């Protein structure tokens, strides 16, 4: 037998598994922040230079840049959260983000590329049913800041052709 037994520390699959686990946990925390509408906690999940966009698949496929929400920096992500909390008028609602099918594409330099599918389910207080409000994919770039994972980019590409009236909170 010339095959060497793997020690846990040297097996690249273990490192991959740990990274996958970290991003999985990150996404669960991200979903919880939005579901509980803790928007300022959501803001803190991005790097200072983060790019965040919610864009239709129709636009993304045609390389058209317009997004429902378009933020070029954490400052703009903060402004979005701030404006929604302090100025926006919209009907009260429950939201549930389901994030799955996580794929981590590995690390190059300090950047980790990943993707995950998402479904956003919404319940309005005056309508009985939970409705699938948006379904799509996150195309992500993560970076560690002081050891903590942060999003340097999240492109939320949604499949729905129509937005049901309004997207009042982030995805």
């Amino acid at each position, binding site marked *: 037998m010339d095959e060497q037994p793997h020690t846990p520390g040297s097996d690249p699959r273990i490192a991959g598994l740990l990274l996958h686990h970290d991003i999985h946990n990150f996404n669960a925390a991200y979903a919880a922040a939005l579901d509980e509408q803790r928007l300022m906690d959501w803001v803190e999940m991005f790097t200072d230079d983060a790019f965040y966009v*919610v*864009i*239709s698949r*129709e*636009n993304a496929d*045609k390389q*058209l*840049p*317009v*997004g*429902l*929400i*378009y*933020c*070029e*920096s954490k*400052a*703009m992500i*903060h*402004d*979005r959260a*701030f*404006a929604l909390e*302090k*100025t*926006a*008028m*919209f*009907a009260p609602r429950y939201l549930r983000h389901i994030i799955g099918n996580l794929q981590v594409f590995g690390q190059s330099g300090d950047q980790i590329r990943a993707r995950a599918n998402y479904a956003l389910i919404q319940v309005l207080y*005056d309508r009985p049913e939970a409705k699938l409000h948006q379904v799509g994919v996150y195309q992500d770039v993560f970076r560690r800041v002081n050891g903590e994972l942060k999003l340097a980019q999240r492109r939320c590409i949604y499949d729905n*052709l*129509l*937005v*049901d*009236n*309004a*997207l*009042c909170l982030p995805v």
Partner: protein
Amino acid sequence: MTTDAMMHMRSGGKASGQSDREPVLLERQYVWPGDLTEIPDWVYTDEAIYAREVERIFHGPTWNYVALEAELPNPGDFIRSNVGPTPVVVARAKDGAIAVVENRCSHRAAEFCRELSGNANEFICPYHQWTYDLKGNLIGIPFKRGIGGKGGMPRSFDQSEHGLTRLNVTSHRGVVFASYRDEMESIAEYLGPDILREFEATFDGRKLKVLGHYRHSLPGNWKLYHENLKDPYHATLLHTFLVTFGLLVAGNRSLMLSDASGRHGVMASAKSDASKVSADAKKEMRSYKEGMRLREERFMDFIEEFNSPWSVTMATILPNLIVQREMNTFGIRQIVPNGPHEFVMKWTMFGFEGDNEEMTRHRLRQGNLMGPAGFLGLEDNEAMKFVQDGMRRVPDKRHLVKLDPATEAGTSESLISESAIRAMYRHWRQEMGV
């Protein structure tokens, strides 16, 4: 019960064989209550009124927005669109002309075009492969003469008479309109001089560059969208964002313009410095929050690029077009009605050829104001939904549009006015015969 809610029975409509039953109510009488300062709910909720709107307005003597020429730069380019609720295909033919045809095969009615946009040499219905050129002429019928002398179309069938239904088309400054009527005035006459001036201030001759689309449904009557943009009163009250960051305040220089017919309008305002808001105006607006600042202040920059005194104009062009020029971010909004209680809105955001990367990004950043997730846009969509909910759940009442009695109907210089809404209904009642 108000007169507008009165119902009566058409003679001869008695339920068969049951003389003691309550008569079946078959027809409603539409009586407008009084003057233009009150609007009855049936204007927004009644199926028959909606059907007549499709007939007399969307399919009547109107120019309906269908596309931007920038979406169809090359021969063969096409997009799916709508005239009122009716699906159409807008295509650039080989000779460069733009054709608008119904998306319905002459043979068995199949909606043949399934792509949102694309490029084609001809349209082939997937069901039986009837083939049309880009102007809708029927150019091919498989097995027209049958097989082996048997079957096929009758000899008398005149192929030239069975093309796709084709609409009248016009285009101005790259904006394409269609009409079911052949005898239409020019778009310049249709808009009238005041609205045309504002239209041409936005479409200033520079070539447009499409930046993307939004599409959303809105569970409200389509006219509420026009009214919302003929209602400058709401802008300072609903849109706390605008007020907080000084984009619009009661007391800003502004104008609510109506054309002579009352059907079109432009809401215009000039940005002012938030620090100069009078204490008086602030007191009236509970929404004003002093000392709030954005971290990305470039977002609110207005880079002057138009020959216009206004930093914001919202043109409402009956029946289905809104042109938004909100500082440096622009959008066409196309109304596609779907019954009295709902419509779909298709937005086309654009910049201009020659915009550098920073200008494009500025337009995209400022785009956060508008659309179904926009700081202002989401509030408008929510408010209009609330209005339709109110009418559906507490029905058969009236709306009040009494602000600014000094202007009975038409252009007003006050933001605290509903005179443009009244002007639209003066026109609407004429067209609808109610």
